[in-house]
């Protein structure tokens, strides 16, 4: 068969080019009410009182809900977040009230009439503010909140929401044994996911007690569990539907609007209520990606062998923890980047600020972390006068090494970085990172950076697949993974088609996810869908083949062991002329006389992650994910020494994909990832003013890449060293192209401009400042 490794179009592609692809807001029930959030216009202030009468009196308004009406506290890890602010607000944009009305116009008008009397509190506006002695506290009750999923180690009477540490070997001794040390401080602002579809949720509470939720989410099963938990319902009562999602990037793994939609529906007797973010709210009210300040010290021998690493990471998590503790552990566990370092000590702090709260962002903390380590690697190369690619190759982590958390690496669970590097050299025409003059004030420079990442998933993450047969022998595939762009459903269909030896168009995928009918899938995150869903699909395919053979054996009067299959037939292995079509078995076999046996055939498949564990509290040791994807990225830039403007000429990625299932889609994922990573590094970032107000909550001020700003040339190559426990050996690749490309850009530009560019985004003004800000 040739389905695996073939570029096939996404199953839903024709719908997407005809406007027929339906997203959450494209499916509306007549009579749906609208809820609108009243956002705080203060970053840190006590709510002295609220006036809601005027809002309630607007014609069409059905309910106005405030924090006084809701006692639940929410949180992925630490339950520190009220769905509507109580007593005080902790970021500008935080929901303080919810207006439910017949139509959006009335809801908006009413929302503008809700009046809050504030008492200003000092604003914690930077990590430095937050860590000062006697700093104002974002959470007075830090350390007292219930913890939903340990571990988390908050520090009472401080703004430290959590701390994660990793120790391997003896970092102090390692530094002493080093001939050279480099020290790098990096600073990265919070960033927005900027999925083109703003977040949306709709909720309805039926008379029979069932709760129907429709949402643009990466985590329908998480929504189901959390709504059930927060509102004391049985999980089976809560039915979550996730249609096609218009981009996610981690930002739709957080559960926020779903809770508000439920509260709104509850306030109006269970009627269907829709709540949708305007772009401004999607940026400032719903969670962002974290900011980071980090210090990295690397020690190495004179010939470039890494001896020790000491690192401190301070995450600007904003006002609430959400998934930050998990991200902190992911950073700690992978802190060295894809390098063999015997002596490591790393501390990661989740720091509360009066900024918009944060959640997962494509790469789960590895993008900012990689920026820190890869800037340090380039500084080391510079100090040692070494080729930066050689330095990385020399120190690349290899099978039989252990990770910072002492997870053992094998040929299967670790991709081959040296092989990627060897492939990168000719791909980008690597010149060692030399600064080449190309005319008056213009230079061209290449920069490189490497990455690794594992899933940092919970040790009990599950996935499932259900395959039912149609009367013509074609199959339906049902999984719990959401489709938000990477072609998850198509990949699953390819795996199923390959296993059943049928054409891809004989597999029909259930596009939406419905938690009541689709098998559970943990969350569509961490680039794990191919691995987890794929394993479940293989299991389901084997189950179905077993059923086909068993029924065929009865019909063909032989043992199932005598049977093989292909071309939608079951046949006797040694005499294929004795065969029976899938279609004659799909809904049971009917004998000539009319009596029948079998019934509908359906394959069930399941998968649970194995051999993972939580990191040890003392040492931080443990196994955070099933496998580490590695790769190397490079850019070539042309930089104007007078204006400090630059153009990205080339962006290149070589990663170990294990096995590429859909080459065109995989290349698209990688190009898109590079584009996003370069956008983050070159222009993105939230601006807060001195009062903590979010200044750029529109696309005219929060800038993302547009056409013409992408690299002039994308170069994408894969190497394929299989991950043995994954379907066809495929490794996770969905997030990875964002991880190091920004660092590669910073490395190139640092060399071009002859300054250390350790603050993102790298705008021409930023370079000009670093160069001394001369007129």
């Amino acid at each position: 068969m040739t389905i695996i490794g073939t570029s096939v179009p996404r199953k839903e592609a024709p719908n997407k080019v005809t406007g027929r692809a339906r997203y959450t807001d494209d499916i509306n029930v007549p009579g749906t009410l609208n809820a609108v959030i009243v956002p705080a216009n203060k970053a840190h202030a006590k709510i002295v009182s609220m006036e809601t009468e005027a809002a309630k009196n607007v014609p069409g308004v059905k309910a106005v809900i405030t924090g006084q009406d809701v006692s639940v506290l929410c949180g992925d890890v630490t339950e520190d977040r009220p769905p509507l602010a109580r007593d005080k607000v902790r970021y500008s944009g935080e929901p303080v009230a919810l207006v439910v009305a017949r139509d959006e116009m009335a809801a908006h008008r009413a929302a503008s009439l809700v009046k809050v009397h504030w008492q200003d509190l000092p604003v914690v506006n930077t990590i430095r503010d937050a860590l000062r002695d006697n700093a104002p506290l974002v959470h007075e009750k830090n350390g007292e909140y219930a913890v939903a999923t340990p571990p988390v180690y908050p520090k009472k009477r401080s703004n430290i929401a959590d701390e994660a540490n990793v120790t391997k070997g003896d970092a102090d001794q390692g530094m002493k044994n080093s001939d050279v040390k480099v020290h790098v401080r990096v600073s990265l602002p919070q960033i927005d996911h900027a999925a083109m579809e703003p977040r949306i949720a709709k909720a309805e509470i039926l008379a029979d007690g069932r709760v129907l939720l429709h949402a643009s989410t990466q985590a329908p099963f998480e929504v189901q569990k959390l709504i059930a938990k927060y509102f004391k319902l049985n999980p089976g009562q809560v039915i979550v539907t996730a249609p096609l999602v218009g981009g996610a990037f981690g930002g739709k793994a957080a559960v926020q609007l779903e809770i508000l939609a439920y509260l709104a529906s509850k306030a109006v007797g269970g009627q269907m209520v829709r709540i949708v973010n305007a772009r401004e709210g999607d940026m400032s009210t719903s969670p962002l990606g974290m900011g980071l300040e980090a210090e990295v010290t690397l020690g190495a021998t004179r010939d470039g062998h890494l001896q020790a690493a000491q690192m401190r990471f301070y995450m600007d998590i904003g006002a609430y923890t959400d998934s930050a503790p998990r991200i902190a552990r992911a950073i700690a566990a992978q802190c060295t980047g894809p390098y063999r370092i015997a002596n490591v000590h790393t501390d990661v702090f989740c720091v509360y600020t009066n900024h918009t709260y944060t959640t997962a962002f494509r790469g789960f903390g590895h993008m900012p972390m990689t920026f820190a380590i890869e800037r340090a690697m380039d500084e080391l190369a510079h100090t040692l006068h070494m080729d930066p690619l050689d330095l990385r190759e020399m120190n690349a982590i290899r099978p039989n090494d252990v990770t910072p958390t002492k997870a053992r690496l094998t040929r299967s669970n670790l991709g081959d970085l040296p092989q990627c590097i060897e492939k990168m050299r000719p791909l980008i025409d690597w010149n060692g990172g030399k600064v080449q003059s190309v005319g008056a004030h213009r230079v061209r420079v290449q920069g490189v950076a490497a990455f690794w990442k594992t899933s940092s998933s919970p040790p009990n993450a599950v996935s499932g697949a259900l395959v039912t047969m149609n009367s013509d022998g074609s199959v339906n595939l049902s999984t719990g993974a959401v489709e938000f762009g990477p072609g998850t459903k198509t990949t699953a269909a390819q795996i199923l088609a390959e296993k059943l030896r049928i054409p891809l168009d004989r597999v029909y995928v259930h596009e939406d996810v419905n938690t009541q009918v689709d098998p559970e899938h943990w969350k569509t995150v961490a680039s794990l869908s191919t691995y987890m869903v794929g394993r479940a699909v293989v299991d389901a395919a084997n189950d179905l083949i077993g059923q086909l053979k068993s029924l065929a054996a009865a019909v063909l009067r032989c043992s199932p062991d005598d049977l093989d299959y292909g071309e939608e037939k079951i046949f006797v292995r040694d005499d294929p002329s004795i065969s029976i079509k899938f279609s004659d078995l799909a809904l049971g076999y009917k004998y000539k006389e009319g009596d029948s046996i079998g019934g509908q055939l359906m394959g069930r498949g399941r998968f649970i992650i194995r051999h993972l564990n939580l990191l040890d509290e003392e040492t931080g040791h443990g196994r955070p994910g099933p496998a580490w994807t590695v790769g190397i990225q490079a850019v070539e830039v042309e930089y104007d020494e007078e204006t400090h403007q630059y153009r990205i000429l080339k962006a290149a990625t070589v990663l170990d994909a294990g096995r590429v299932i859909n080459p065109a889609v995989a290349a698209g994922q990688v190009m898109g990832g590079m584009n996003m990573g370069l956008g983050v590094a070159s222009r993105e970032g939230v601006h807060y003013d001195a009062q903590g107000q979010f200044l750029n909550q529109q696309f005219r001020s929060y800038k993302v890449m547009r056409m013409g700003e992408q690299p002039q040339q994308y170069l994408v190559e894969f190497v394929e060293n299989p991950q043995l426990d994954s379907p066809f050996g495929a490794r996770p690749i969905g997030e990875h192209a964002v991880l190091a490309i920004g660092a590669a850009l910073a490395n190139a530009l640092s060399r071009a401009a002859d300054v250390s560019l350790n603050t993102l985004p790298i705008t021409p003004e930023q370079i000009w400042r670093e160069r001394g800000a001369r007129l």
Partner: protein
Amino acid sequence: MMPNPLHYYRPDTITEARDLFEQLQRANQRPTYYGGGTEILTRSRLNDGDFDAVIDLKGIPELHVHEQDGSRLRFGSVLRLTELADRDLWPFLTATVDRIADHTTRGQITLGGNLFSTLPYKEALLPFLVSDSADLTVATPDGVKQRRLADVFDEELRLDPGDFLISVTVDGQEAKALAFKSFKMTRQDWIDYPLVTIGTARREDGSIRAAFSGWSSFPFTSSRVNKILSNTQKPPEERAREAVAAMPFHAVDDIHGSSEYRQFVTQYTLARMLKELEAQS
């Protein structure tokens, strides 16, 4: 995605529109003239508008005029920026408006909308600001009046409340004789508000004029700066440095760029423009 609580009017004549404005005011409504709508709708959806009725001027033929009218180039106020660029009657104006917003949006923004924008930029003003002959044709209660642009420009175009712009004209000879450059400089992105947009023109007598947008909260030209720029005894870099030092207002400090960085960008951009302008002649 909500309808804004607006009333909509589309008059057919200048008189109808002018009268309607006063009529609505008398009825305690807050009317505003409406061209392309991009700014009014963005403000309206954020409850940032002091209007509840829009008077769409696009139904009035005189506001669509786009021609060489005798010796003058006449630009109707509801012409879309893309129409100005496609017809290219005055290349200086084309070069300037072609860098406003993005292409699709330029198909919606009108000349009048940009000139009377509440944003600081109003880049379409720049070519007119460096001309001597720019006139406005204005609808007033006493009928259609001509106003010299120089007479009504004071940080912005100041018309009497209720009056509206019909068209802008400039002398064809003057327009043709101006050698020009128009550069928009942004923080990083092609589509963004300007750090500074500079329109420079070299007149037949060799003197140079420059108008600036983005430097301060309104567009301006400065005779002092123009004098410095016109002193061809000095090299472009030196004139640019002196010009930036002589600017009549402080450079804005905002999320697009700091005040100092605006000075830096303005300086190298001016120097480059002077070199290119003088190389042309």
